[in-house]
């Protein structure tokens, strides 16, 4: 398999036609220190009802990837410089701003990381929810909007929805706010929902509840979900497939069990090993030595090579293509077929 062949065409789960197909997406940030290649040639596809996890360290470009899908990269530094984002068969990168606004919330929605920050403190929940409903349906009268708002809150299991609509964000807990953000995102039953670290800011007990809620919404509506996280626990709980992102690119992609049990990229393995484990005698957390490369000045070879215990000369000289391991599992590593790598 060659490098420029989009991943989605190979690894597509043939369950349904893809609702979202990303091909060779590139998003660069133009800063005064240079051009940061935050997303540098990412491809994947997503079928309806499917959940893809994107996992990576902070700074791997995963949030920028999410924002690129809805074309909300930070202005004026962020620019989508190449690739295609096919949503329901059309490239959203070709749409006008007005058309793009029609797409947001209706075909693709997003849940942001911090529920404490993502609701406007000076407007009531009902006002903010009504807005999300009215924006794509201007003819609705107030009574219908109220009914739909109540339904939307019921769909995310918010108790006493009528009263909640009158509340302001500061009168609610973080978990409640994140549910309301979820209700807003799902108000139009979009085909794709991007959840950028949806549970990072929540308490552990609330986290599990929220993930179950997402699953529940998916079962009812068939929405395809992209979960962006650095937490393999979240991946294990929610995702069908997982893509591992490193320095702006995917380095491994496959079904969750295969990635967990048989990682084929040393980075994936290192990430899995650095998870805190309760059953381990050692009290020290595993970590990956070194720092991710600067996204301004990237090496020509494998971007992980400098930190990789198994790197060979070729890794430094040439960027590895995708190696197919099974029909759905691929890794961009020269030595992906040599597993298990010799222990150091």
């Amino acid at each position, binding site marked *: 398999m060659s490098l420029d062949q989009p991943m989605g065409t190979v690894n597509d789960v043939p369950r349904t036609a893809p609702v979202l197909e990303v091909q060779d997406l590139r998003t660069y940030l133009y800063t005064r220190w240079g051009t940061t290649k935050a997303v540098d040639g990412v491809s994947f596809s997503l079928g309806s009802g499917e959940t893809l996890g994107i996992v990576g360290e902070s700074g791997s470009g995963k949030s920028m990837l999410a924002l690129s899908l809805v074309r909300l990269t930070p202005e004026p530094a962020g620019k989508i410089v190449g690739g295609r984002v096919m949503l329901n068969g059309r490239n959203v990168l070709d749409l006008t701003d007005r058309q793009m606004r029609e797409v947001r*919330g*209706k075909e693709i*929605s997003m849940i*942001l990381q911090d529920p404490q920050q993502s609701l406007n403190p000076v*407007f009531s929940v009902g006002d903010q929810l009504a807005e*999300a409903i009215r924006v794509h349906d201007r003819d609705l009268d107030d009574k219908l909007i109220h009914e739909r708002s109540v339904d939307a809150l019921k769909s995310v299991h918010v108790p006493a929805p009528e009263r909640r609509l009158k509340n*302001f964000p*500061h009168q609610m807990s973080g978990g409640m706010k994140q549910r309301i953000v979820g209700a807003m995102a799902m108000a139009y039953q979009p085909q794709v929902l991007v959840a950028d670290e949806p549970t990072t800011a929540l308490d552990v007990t609330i986290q599990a509840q929220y993930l179950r809620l997402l699953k529940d919404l998916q079962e009812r509506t068939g929405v395809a979900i992209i979960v962006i996280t650095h937490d393999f626990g979240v991946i294990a709980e929610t995702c069908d497939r997982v893509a591992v992102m490193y320095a702006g690119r995917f380095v491994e992609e496959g079904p969750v069990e295969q990635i967990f049990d048989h990682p084929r990229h040393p980075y994936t393995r290192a990430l899995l090993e650095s998870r805190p484990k309760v059953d381990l005698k050692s009290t020290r957390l595993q970590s990956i030595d070194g720092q991710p490369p600067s996204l301004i000045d990237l090496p020509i070879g494998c971007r992980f090579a400098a930190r990789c215990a198994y790197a060979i000369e070729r890794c430094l000289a040439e960027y590895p293509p995708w190696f197919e391991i099974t029909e759905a599992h691929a890794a961009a590593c020269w030595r992906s077929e040599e597993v298990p790598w010799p222990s150091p």
Partner: protein
Amino acid sequence: MINAVRGLLTLFAVSILVFSLARLTGDPIDVLAPVDISREDEAALRERWGLNGSIWEQYVSFVGNASQGDFGPSFKYPTETAASVIAERLPASISLGIVATVLTLVIGVPLGILSAVKRGSWLDRIAKGLALFGQSVPEFWLAIMLIWFVAVRWNVVPTSGISGWQSYILPSIVISVFGIAALLRLFRSAMLETLGSEYVKLARLKGLSEFKVVWKHALKPASIAPLTFFGGIAVRMLTGATVVEIVFAWPGVGYLAYEAANARDFPVVQALALFTAAVIIIMNLLIDITYAYVDPRVRLGQKAIA
């Protein structure tokens, strides 16, 4: 309610301060009465001006009368009371203050918002320049320059006094320049903050138009911080801008304050100081009420549920 009580206490403290400061400047008889005044005349004058008795008696009668709107006769204009002197001058100051306040809001707020929205554009650069200029230029200098160029050389508007609406142009510009600059800067930085917030990102994610994103979701939370400041400058403008009124010979209370202080016209000075304090207190109460409207987090009597 608590704020209203606090306001009254403040007013009381101001009355003591005003009363005692006025006495520190010396005996008005020495300044105003002829040097060769007879004993009888002096005693009569003291009686009439309320300068008899101990300092405490003077204060008590001052507060008692003041609470009924009576500040005594003006020393300088013996046929009038302090209150009537002020009432006569007030309309000129208030009308000028309203024009300047409107000018401040109409120019300062939109410019601040637009300069944040179009950050880095030529408009932003001009606005930033204007903000720097407005906050650093001395009022008297700007006033003199405007009089010299616009009124004297180009002869477009009158140089001083009130003679028709044209007279308002220069003084209102001079008074509002500082407020425009300050509001512009405050709105710009507050808008930059809210425009970069997560809730604005979420508003865009919902598919809202840029107009709604900027003028609703970013603007309302951004207006909280400048509100306090606006209260302050509105008071300054409504109670008479002394320097500007002097330069433009504007017959308002600002100019009156200057005249009265020079003439040791105690009753007028005291009445003016109390009047200004009262306006500040009322304005702060209004601002508090507006706060509760803008920011639901400061509304009283509401408890968090979840």
